[in-house]
């Protein structure tokens, strides 16, 4: 299938304490490559500081990549001409945020918030605009009368529906969902997840579904990518990743999730915490916590390589 999103060896560093005596470089994302096909959902999982959110933001142009290449719909948004290319595809990209309270301007009526992408794109008369707001509210299952109300009159789950309606306004092809259901209660979460999936089917959307909750990711994704300390460690189809995880980190991560009615098998506890991204260690970033680590893991950075089918993994120990 033709990829609509492609990342090739993308890295992002942030300068911390700029202007202070000792500016430091934080290596948030290092050498990440993957692609997303049309009408596909790629789940991107990892713990805090793994760089998953940074990737999501780079894909919609909030941060420029420090190095590497990002193409959207076949256009390179990095390097020279990147700005123009980004502007050309901007209408086809959208973003859904984690916190539905921060994602809506409290002083803006819901209708205006939903119509904001339309207003920025311009060229809509009052009647069409109003009709479009109504349609969008229908799509996310909110009454049309919501348009003239303010965000504080809605619950968290309803606000997330409003945010989704705003994201749909320009009929995008690709939406980054950054922890889009993490702030919601279980019963609300299921409703919003189902809504996202219905919309995907109806409009042929692609998602990058960023989340730390592995169970939610399993229920929405076509393929799943796992990140650790800024690097991509494994990517595979949903079934392969959950049923045959190859990277020791993926295994530990899946193992660590508490299950209703107890863990299936005895748990292998990961010790310690992720390394500092300001001065990342040489070799495999997971080596310091890896139960299987060998001396070469601490020296040599493992290559991200295919291991059969579309299963890729970055580990020296996987045959």
């Amino acid at each position, binding site marked *: 299938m033709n990829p609509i999103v492609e990342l090739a060896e993308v890295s992002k560093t942030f300068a911390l304490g700029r202007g202070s005596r000792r500016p430091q470089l934080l290596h948030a994302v290092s050498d990440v490559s993957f692609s997303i096909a049309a009408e596909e959902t790629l789940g991107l999982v990892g*713990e*805090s500081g793994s760089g998953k959110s940074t990737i999501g933001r780079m894909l919609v142009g909030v941060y420029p990549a420090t190095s590497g290449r990002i193409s959207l719909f076949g256009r390179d948004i990095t390097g020279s001409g990147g700005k123009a290319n980004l502007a050309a595809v901007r209408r086809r990209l959208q973003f859904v945020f984690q916190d539905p309270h921060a994602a809506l301007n409290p002083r803006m009526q819901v209708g205006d918030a939903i119509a904001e992408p339309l207003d920025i794109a311009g060229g809509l008369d009052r009647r069409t605009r109003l009709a479009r707001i109504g349609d969008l509210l229908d799509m996310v299952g909110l009454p049309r009368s919501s348009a003239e109300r303010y965000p504080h009159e809605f*619950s968290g*789950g*309803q606000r997330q529906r409003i945010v989704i309606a705003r994201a749909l306004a320009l009929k995008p092809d690709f939406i980054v969902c950054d922890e889009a259901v993490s702030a919601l*209660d*279980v*019963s*609300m*979460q*299921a*409703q919003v*997840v*189902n809504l996202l*999936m219905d919309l995907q089917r109806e409009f042929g959307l692609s998602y990058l579904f960023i989340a*730390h*909750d*592995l*169970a*939610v990711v*399993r*229920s929405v994704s076509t393929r799943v990518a796992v990140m650790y300390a800024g690097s991509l460690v494994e990517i595979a189809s*949903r*079934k392969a990743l*959950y049923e045959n995880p190859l990277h020791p980190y993926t295994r*530990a*991560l*899946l*193992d*660590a*999730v*508490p*299950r*209703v*009615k*107890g*863990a*299936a098998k005895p*748990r292998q*506890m*990961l*010790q310690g*915490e992720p390394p500092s991204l300001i001065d990342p260690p040489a070799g495999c970033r997971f080596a310091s916590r890896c139960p299987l680590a060998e001396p070469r893991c601490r020296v040599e950075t493992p290559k991200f390589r295919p291991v059969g089918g579309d299963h890729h993994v970055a580990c020296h120990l996987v045959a």
Partner: protein
Amino acid sequence: MSESNILEISGLTVEFRSGGRWITAIRDVDLTLAPRQCLGIVGESGSGKSVTALSILRLHPAKSTRIASGRILYQGRDLLAVAPGELARIRGSEIAMIFQDPMSSLNPVLTIGEQIGETLRIHQGLNRADALAKAVGLLDMVRIPDARRRVAEYPHRLSGGMRQRVMIAMAIACRPKILIADEPTTALDVTVQAQILNLLRDLREELGMSVILISHDMGVISEFTDKIAVMYAGQVVEQAVGDGLFDAPMHPYTSGLLRAIPNIDRDVDRLATIPGSIPDAARMVPGCRFHPRCPEALESCRSEAPAMIDLGGLRQTRCPPRAERQGMIGGRS
């Protein structure tokens, strides 16, 4: 029954002030905790699980919250009636508590050693040096590496997981009989969560504590606790010991909740949902509080507020129709 319980909450109703009115946060909560038992309270936001936990040590903001009725018996004394001085003596020494957000729960201007040592100085009358020495031991106990150096550090130098360990060290300093943990791992990553839960399990064993664990995560509750109370909209709706709750939930809310949780061990293409949303405490629905979202609601559910029904075998439900259908009605509690 009361002989065997270390803590008994009965008829607890708590109200908070909002816009000049008193609004009921939790109503008629009954819970018991046996020695060395681990009670899990599970529920979504607004269910009142944290309010219940905070009530035990009366840690609510005093100006905007009031306890309208109820008793909380700890070793025969009503914690809601003891004098402030006596309450301060119990807090931290006999009943300790840890909280959700380890980032904001530690005082930023005091060293870790000072904060842990303070508990010992208050309750065991240790001097500063002895308290600090003992704090090092406690940091070892919660598996913080390099404890001797860490005691002199300030909280902002530690990661979230480390701070939660410090909170735990502080809580167990005086070997309390009860530890209340309010969403202790919600703010943490899943691998760190596993570490912290493991630590709590070991410490509970080692110190013989009773634990009350509050969480929204059924998995955490299921793995960690041996008795479970499900709360919804300010009420306990179901209680069970062991896995019975998961095998045969006796309240439609519990059933719905369990179905709505995405499963990590199975491919599911569409999640089951509970329609509607959690009612607003300021506009509580009449009758059974779950009836507008309940697929099994009867006409009677709309008007009659159901009482807790004892099903025997330490199971209780607040759903009379289901209890009747199962033919399990025993005596009313």
